[in-house]
């Protein structure tokens, strides 16, 4: 790449990035300034931690963080396992009814869990799981999205690698674990990031199936600020948002590095 191209490239990326990150920057701005500066971008505005203090004190966030962490880890782990198995089945095994079953899975992509809340609540209650972390997780552990995505990736794995492993005496599960999963690493990262941020931020279903501080995720705490009846208080909402999203932001910064080392430099020859 010539120097000129490079400059153009970076400038383009920087401009687009700036546009995209503007809301986040705004959140940071408001969170660290008194609310009077919500609409005034004066560089001399006084800094304050007050918004964070207020946000932290509004709900038992420490406990909520723990809940969310356990919940998100659990869901993501379960999703990885279930979706990987199913995706593998769909991608590399021919069996009768496969297309229909896959259509059923795709259907799960379409059906909005938010609309099925009443029915799902009844199911969860029938299992006596109301107000547990499992209740929040169960409807999501088999994700059509994940199955679809991972299947898509598995289908791009060269058949010869599968063949080679089979010749070496690896059974289907071993092939899955030793060949497909490692090769799909970028996809797992992508899916993991997306899934974690989705469940980290999921609100309505957790609110409805949980009742106690010991099971509720951070979003419930966050929602205390998201009420509009008395007017939006951007500085506190944004402080709370940053506070609850900080672990995600950090995790993203860490994991995106994994994308960098394209460990399949030459792909598969």
């Amino acid at each position, binding site marked *: 790449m010539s120097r000129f191209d490079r400059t153009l490239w970076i400038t383009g990326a920087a401009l687009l990035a700036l546009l*995209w990150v503007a*809301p986040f920057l705004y959140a940071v701005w408001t969170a660290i300034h008194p609310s009077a500066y919500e609409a005034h971008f004066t560089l001399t505005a006084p800094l304050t931690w007050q918004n964070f203090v207020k946000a932290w004190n509004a709900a038992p966030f420490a406990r909520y963080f723990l809940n969310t962490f356990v919940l998100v880890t659990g869901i993501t782990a379960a999703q990885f396992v279930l979706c990987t198995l199913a995706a593998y089945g769909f991608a590399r095994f021919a069996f009768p009814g496969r297309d229909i079953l896959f259509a059923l899975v795709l259907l799960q992509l379409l059906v909005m869990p938010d*609309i099925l809340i009443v029915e799902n609540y009844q199911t969860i209650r029938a299992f006596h799981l109301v107000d547990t972390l499992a209740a929040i997780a169960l409807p999501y552990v088999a994700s059509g999205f994940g199955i679809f*995505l991972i299947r898509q*990736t598995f289908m791009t794995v060269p058949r010869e690698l599968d063949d080679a492993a089979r010749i070496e005496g690896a059974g289907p599960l071993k092939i899955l674990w030793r060949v497909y999963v490692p090769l799909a690493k970028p996809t797992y990262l992508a899916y993991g990031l997306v899934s974690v941020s989705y469940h980290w931020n999921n*609100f309505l279903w957790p609110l409805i199936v949980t009742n106690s501080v010991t099971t509720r995720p951070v979003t419930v705490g966050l929602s205390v600020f998201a009420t509009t009846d008395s007017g939006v208080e951007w500085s506190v909402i944004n402080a709370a948002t940053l506070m*609850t999203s900080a672990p995600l932001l950090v995790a993203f910064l860490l994991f995106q590095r994994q994308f960098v080392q394209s460990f399949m430099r030459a*792909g598969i020859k």
Partner: protein
Amino acid sequence: MERKREWIWGWLLILPALVFILLFTHYPAVRTVIESLWSTPRGTRPTHFVGLHNYERLLNDPTFWQVLTNNVVYALGTIPVSVALAIVMAILVNRPYKGRALARMAFFTPTILPLIAVANIWLFFYLPGFGLIDQVLGLFGIGQTNLLGDPGTALPAVMVVSVWKEAGFFMIFYLAALQAIPPQLTEAARIEGAGRWTIFWRITFPLLMPTTLFVSINAVINAFRLVDHIFILTGGGPDNASSLLLFYIYETSFRYWDTAYGATLTVVLLALLCLLAIGQFFLFDRKVHYK
């Protein structure tokens, strides 16, 4: 026998996921379909079978038609833009340079931040007079706007938020896919004198097709099911100008508690999405090149 073995493996692998999916998606979905054939129970008046009455009502419901139209406009307006932007972003942050991590982060933040919070930030951006957009426009001497408060601009304003939210989300998948393209292929194309543009259209883009299929199906679905920001930005207003199908379903089911009619709308939405997404899938999956 080998074939049978394959069947068994296939079934066994899919079974665990299938159980959950059936339990938490199909079973309630089927109940929804059934419910759409009955009336909404109202305390004193228990539910009774009404056949297709709810569907008839739907055909005569002008709000339904309006939100449907809105939704089509919304989908057509947001999907191509966000998918195209996602590809651009992925390509922008795929090669190494200083600050790449930050750019990735920037594109991905919309996915990380909870929509309720983010919608409030956009609300501020859109505020007439002292909102960010008006402040910026003010610098150029352009007067006030009321983007969310005007029926002509409310939907486009909501669409912008949606593109912003979706593009970075899709970027992640394109980024993963880009990493899997063997570099020799682009090398070979470069040798053949292909410029960046040609390489993109003739090599990279076709090889990204599986991802594009995935992303576009998701985009279609999301266009019909992501409505959280509407609650905060416009509440579907003014006069339903920015209301979408799911938002309407939500109102019907969880505000009016007219569950039967809500179920009917849901069934229509599902049928529509099935048609779009599954059709899209089975039409293109065969044509998409996977290797």
